[in-house]
């Protein structure tokens, strides 16, 4: 009996070894937290093979604490760049340069340069690496850099001191302005890559030490390649047509005075007449509500006839913005970035089944369709006062 008990003692020691259960442990200070990733084409080298470079923005926690002095301190991040022929090889190469293994669980941002996105097959296969990685969450935002993506991660922002965090927060402001689109996440992009619809990604550019976040890059859904871009005002048009926004403003002229209309709500209704699928009639109604935020004239707003005129003027402005975007989509890119195809699937599935091969491609029925836009504007309020200035001349 005693012998058996003695045998228990080494057994307990043996068990304790396994009970720690730390096969996969990595101490938190050994993680190299990557917050942002930028992908560029590598400048150097003959381009028989596509070589691109990857920049990881890692947090340098020691420098992130409360700043003791304002000047002369190190930025709280390190950007590490390496080049290679595949993202995976690059990340492994990076390990030769950094002491801490990159840890992507907290990644916020992936910035792809436009020339990578324009390459025939690079973009989709590159995103594949990111989607496939289990560490990377599907909520990571994807942006297209107009020039070099690396530059985006090198700005020196305030008050957020990490560029990746800074940009991440800026993109969340999208709902307050009309020339930005809601940030596209990696998960959302995964869907775009898988189906054949054309899509847009937000673009970003640097301007000295600031980032400029507006406009979108247009992607062909079939070969997942960037084919062009929309500037700020064309993006406004697209947003109005798609009709989900909560904020923004429209500037317009009224009897030679500038006025600013603050948009509160915009909804669009799309009606499709699919009797002739090769030449559809699509009518888009945009309902807009908002306030007058700024006025430079001094006419009373309380007169309903004048208000009606203002509303008409704003509607005209909105229609113009929308047509400008439609023109660009139909004539220049011949791609349905207005999501009319998704509408067809929902409401006219049978028609869609017949024409889906020829909607954006082949016969391109999208470009043939007649799109008509009408805007319906309601000015709800104009602030606390009718006029803040004296009558000048009336």
């Amino acid at each position: 009996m005693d012998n058996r008990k003695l045998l228990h003692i080494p057994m307990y020691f043996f068990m304790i070894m396994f009970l720690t259960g730390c096969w996969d442990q990595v101490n938190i200070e050994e993680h190299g937290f990557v917050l942002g990733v930028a992908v560029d084409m590598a400048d150097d080298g003959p381009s028989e093979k596509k070589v691109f470079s990857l920049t990881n923005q890692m947090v340098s926690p020691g420098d992130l604490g409360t700043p003791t002095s304002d000047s002369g301190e190190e930025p709280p991040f390190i950007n590490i760049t390496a080049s290679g022929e595949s993202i995976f090889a690059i990340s492994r190469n990076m390990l030769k340069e950094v002491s801490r293994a990159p840890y992507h669980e907290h990644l916020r941002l992936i910035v792809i340069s436009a020339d990578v996105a324009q390459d025939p097959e690079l973009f989709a296969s590159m995103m594949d690496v990111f989607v496939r990685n289990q560490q990377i969450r599907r909520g990571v935002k994807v942006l297209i850099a107009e020039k070099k993506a690396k530059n985006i991660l090198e700005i020196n922002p305030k008050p957020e001191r990490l560029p990746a965090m800074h940009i991440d927060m800026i993109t969340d402001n999208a709902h307050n302005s009309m020339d930005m689109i809601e940030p596209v996440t990696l998960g959302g992009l995964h869907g775009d890559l898988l189906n054949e619809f054309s899509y847009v990604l937000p673009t970003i550019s640097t301007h000295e030490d600031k980032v400029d976040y507006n406009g979108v890059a247009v992607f062909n859904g079939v070969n997942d390649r960037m084919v062009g871009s929309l500037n700020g005002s064309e993006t406004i048009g697209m947003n109005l047509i798609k009709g989900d926004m909560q904020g923004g403003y429209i500037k317009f002229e009224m009897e030679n005075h500038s006025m600013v209309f603050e948009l509160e709500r915009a909804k669009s209704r799309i009606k499709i007449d699919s009797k002739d699928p090769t030449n559809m009639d699509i009518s888009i109604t945009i309902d807009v509500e908002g306030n007058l935020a700024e006025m430079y004239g001094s006419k009373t707003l309380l007169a309903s006839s004048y208000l009606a005129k203002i509303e008409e003027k704003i509607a005209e402005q909105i229609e113009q913005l929308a047509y400008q975007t439609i023109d660009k989509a139909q004539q220049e890119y011949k791609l349905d970035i207005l999501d009319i195809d998704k509408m067809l699937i929902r409401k006219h599935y049978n028609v869609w089944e017949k024409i889906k091969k020829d909607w954006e491609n082949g016969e391109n029925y999208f470009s043939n369709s007649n799109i008509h836009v009408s805007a319906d504007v309601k000015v709800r309020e104009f602030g606390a006062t009718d006029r803040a200035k004296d009558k000048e001349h009336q």
Partner: protein
Amino acid sequence: MKRFEYADELISEREIMIAIPSIVIGVGILSLPRFLATVTTAADGWISILAGGVLAIGMTWIIAKLAASFPHQSFLSYASRIVTKPVAVVLTFLFAFFFLQVVAFQVREIADISKQYLFNRTPVEVLALVFLLVVVYAVSGSRAGLFRLNMMFFPIILFISSLVIFFSINRFESEHLFPMFQTSFTGYLKGLGSAATSYIGFGILWFYLSLVRQPSKAPKYAITGMCIPVVLYMVIFIACIGVFGNEVTQNLLFPVVELAKGAEIPGEFFERFESVFFTIWIMAIFNTTTLGLDISVFALTQIFKNTPKYTIIFILSPLVYVTAMYPQNLIEVSSFGTYIGYVIFGYTVFVAVLLLVVGKLRGVKALG
């Protein structure tokens, strides 16, 4: 110190009600939305889930009714009365065999998933072994204790599932659900196959009903229990489609895990929700696996009356481990799962039909 002994090895009807969803909800649902999305349009897969569920509920009721008409008799003894002893022994043995494979599949799948999402450097073999050892430990104890464990774990599992769905609501896009009802009939039928096979496990009633105190009440409770996974699966499926869309769901290996991974808790004070989800889901799989292994053991103890339970467990465990490690990659694991699903579903239905028909023909008494 004296070990606590349960007064008897009998269980209440409510424990049967919980045991059914406990064995049904396992690793299957983690990938079920992917299979359904591939064969149906948009969110139409819910119809297949519902149809499969109705089928499973019907089967549950038939089995429960049949087993309940022989109160407190083991499967082997009432099956012997209906189809003679040798046939009954073969039927029992096959049940033990198939449920053993379910156990092996669950062990392998949870080891694979844990490796993929949690322990990148730990070998699958070690993960599977550790998990299996815990399962063996549980099964070695009292059978009634297992049911109590189910009762304890199950509400937690339901809670975490609803939490995952709740925190996915803000990423839910209703346009992903359209167009509705555009799937072809064959599409629904294929979906029905995947859905129905994800409900396997109601076969436990053949055995566990003999433990129920008041068998006559059991069928009602059993089908109530079966309704839980049906509803849960439908909600989870629609959540997956709503959040990811049909195309993406088709391409995610474990859509439900990804759903948990993306769940956003307002205020962002708690990220990496999937770690909690995993912990809880391992409990769900633990439930499935222990019940599965226990059924095998139970079936074999009915055949080999003189062999102690522990001996059977010690013979079965290495078999489970070897079977679990046999598939070489993800594709093989997945086809292993599909095969088990169809085989068990088919076999359970076959046994039910056989016992019903032969029982009626031979006019065995006490057949309800």
